[in-house]
């Protein structure tokens, strides 16, 4: 399992069974989670055939500021049987609820799969809003001040630097934030992340170095990755307070990552999972090291066991002694 999957398997499974032909309605009441303090609640509060899917996201206030609700409306509003409840009307304790009347679902198999997929991607869809907003802003900026083709190295000239451009900020885990900054030739996404464990910090350095190097080596199409520890990147210096234990990872999305709708969504899917992906890999690296260590210990024990001197019966008999150290012969 190299990649984390963006969809939530449990939601997928729930709706796969609920929308399958011959489904016998049962009452549901389940709590599920996703990364970054996201909680779902699937329940059937009134009727067994009406499923309420609620989502609670830690940084919902930020997301809704950047138009998450409108995006959800666009994504799910097309389905007549899905009601989107938000603010006052949604389930208490959660941020948005989708009320799905499964009796009204009349779709062919392909459309059904599409719907299930979209439902299981609910978290990504919520997180996509600020990204899409930044992408749209980039398009406007790119039209206003087209990139100078002579400026090969992408240096910021005084005229084109968009230092006053608004930076979109998501406090997606409380202490840790995502910053998104559009400009006329790129969109910069900066993650700040905190490691509670000292060893993790060291792993993360090696790991991030690998990220920056990978691009040089073979994958030229990947977005540029710049990482810095403690030092706040220039783009966000005016809004992020300096802090000692934060690591900043900057992704630079170039126009080729934003060319078409599909490519855009692909970029969003991957980039919003980055923090989880990063922490996940640090953990499995440790698992891998543990495996190696166990193997090593086992093989050393084997050698030690081989080195043990065999004691024969004669010697054993001669060496009998009492607890006080007195020797005696066994006849």
């Amino acid at each position: 399992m190299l990649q984390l999957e963006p969809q939530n398997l449990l939601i997928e499974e729930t709706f796969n069974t609920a929308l399958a032909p011959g489904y016998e309605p049962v009452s549901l009441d389940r709590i599920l989670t996703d990364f970054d303090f996201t909680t779902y609640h699937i329940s059937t509060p009134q009727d067994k055939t009406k499923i309420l899917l609620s989502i609670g996201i830690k940084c919902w206030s930020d997301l809704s500021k950047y138009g998450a609700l409108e995006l959800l409306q666009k994504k799910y509003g097309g389905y007549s049987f899905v009601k989107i409840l938000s603010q006052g009307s949604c389930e208490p304790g959660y941020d948005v609820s989708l009320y799905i009347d499964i009796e009204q679902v009349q779709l062919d198999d392909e459309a059904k799969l599409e719907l299930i997929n979209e439902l299981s991607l609910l978290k990504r869809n919520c997180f996509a809003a600020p990204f899409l907003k930044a992408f749209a802003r980039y398009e406007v900026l790119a039209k206003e001040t087209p990139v100078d083709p002579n400026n090969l190295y992408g240096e910021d000239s005084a005229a084109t630097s968009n230092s006053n451009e608004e930076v979109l900020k998501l406090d997606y885990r409380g202490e840790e934030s995502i910053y998104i900054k559009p400009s006329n030739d790129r969109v910069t996404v900066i993650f700040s992340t905190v490691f509670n464990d000292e060893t993790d910090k060291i792993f993360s350095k090696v790991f991030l170095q690998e990220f920056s190097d990978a691009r040089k080596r073979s994958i030229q199409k990947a977005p540029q990755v710049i990482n810095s520890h403690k030092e706040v990147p220039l783009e966000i210096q005016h809004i992020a307070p300096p802090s000692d234990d934060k690591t900043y990872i900057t992704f630079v999305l170039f126009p080729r990552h934003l060319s078409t709708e599909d490519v855009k969504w692909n970029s969003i899917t991957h980039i919003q999972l980055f923090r989880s992906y990063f922490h996940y890999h640090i953990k499995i690296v440790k698992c891998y090291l543990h495996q190696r260590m166990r193997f090593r210990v086992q093989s050393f024990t084997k050698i030690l066991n081989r080195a043990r001197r065999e004691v024969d019966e004669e010697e054993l008999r001669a060496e009998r002694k009492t607890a006080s150290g007195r020797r005696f012969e066994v006849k």
Partner: protein
Amino acid sequence: MSSINTPAVVMDNGTGFTKLGFAGNDSPSWVFPTAIATRNTSTGSSSKPMAPSKPSFLSSGTGNSNSLIAGSNANSKASSIHGNRDMADLDFYIGDYALEAAKGPSYSLSYPIRHGQIENWDQMERFWETSIFKYLKCEPEDHYFLLTEPPLNPPENRENTAEIMFESFNCAGLYIAVQAVLALAASWTSSKVIDRSLTGTVIDSGDGVTHVIPVAEGYVIGSAIKNIPIAGRDITSFIQTMLRERGEADSSLRTAEQIKQQFCYVCPDIVKEFRKYDNDPEMFAKYIVDTVSHKKIEVDVGYERFLAPEIFFNPEICSSDFLTPLPIIVDQVIQASPIDVRKNLYKNIVLSGGSTMFKDFGRRLQRDLKTMVNERVEASERLSGAKSSGVQVQVISHKRQRNAVWFGGSLMAQTSEFKSYCHTKRDYDEYGPNIVRNFSLFSVP
């Protein structure tokens, strides 16, 4: 940390099946086989198939010892250095996908848990890693974990578990509970339970083996535990043999299992039940098998409806080397426990596990036990002349029996006190792995 509001993760890794889910739910979110399919390496012939390929910096630094260990393997190791970037350690499946993948030639299947205890830590670590990140989709740093262990699990295994949970996954907090205690807690949902104590006898019958475990005040009385080599698998194969002997059209393991789950029940008296069947053909059921080719095959279901679960009470009908009926074993277990808890052990006999789900299983067990206990009480009254206050025998069956252990864990972990019983990552860093040798018990609300 801000992990206070996230639901705790409850993981019950059994020999056959793993139950995963979040505290507060009434059923586990995932139930799948505790199986892992790992990629066959090209050096599969070596004595240690689990050895992951070695990164180049390791093998070059320890050249001497390497030649000692690997011996004739040295050549193949050298070639695997080249391939160490292929992420072979990430190429595996767990659960149902593992069973699926193992059908092909390139994966081999293994079960990291044997007899309830973790045997292969490498595989278990990877199993957990996938269950947490792929199936539960949670960041372990944000969640508390409740794991289960079988009774008489050596403390070293607990330490190993804690090492993995805290050092690999950095989980926020950990509680390791004994399965039998959780099964007792799950029985609190039954209306028959009044006083919610953690004293009782747990009959835990899964797929492979049946345990009878006495628990006093939350502590397992280890010396009195007894195992019975009859469990779900034996019942299924018993049904299968009966189907085969009758020459039914379909006698696959799956069919036998379906019949077991849908039709079997426990009867009060076999002789009467046989007569009932002979007088009334209505009792014979029909099971319809859907084959792959959409043909419907009818299978008659006869005496096995009540005979199959009967092997708990009369083991001689299927096994020749184990002959003690379940009620007698339960009685022996309670008699082997300290005298001051025996009364409470008789009063609270709790069923757990899929093989105790047969209709009237609890009632029959209670009746048989009661007869035995009453005889003993009478005999002692006759001999001593003193009037006994009587012994109450009560077998409790409830709706959550199938996943009782998991459900008990979910109940425990959703209480507000749960997190204070856990050992946190900070405690672990301070004291080291031996901190998990002791967990404070849940106080009874």
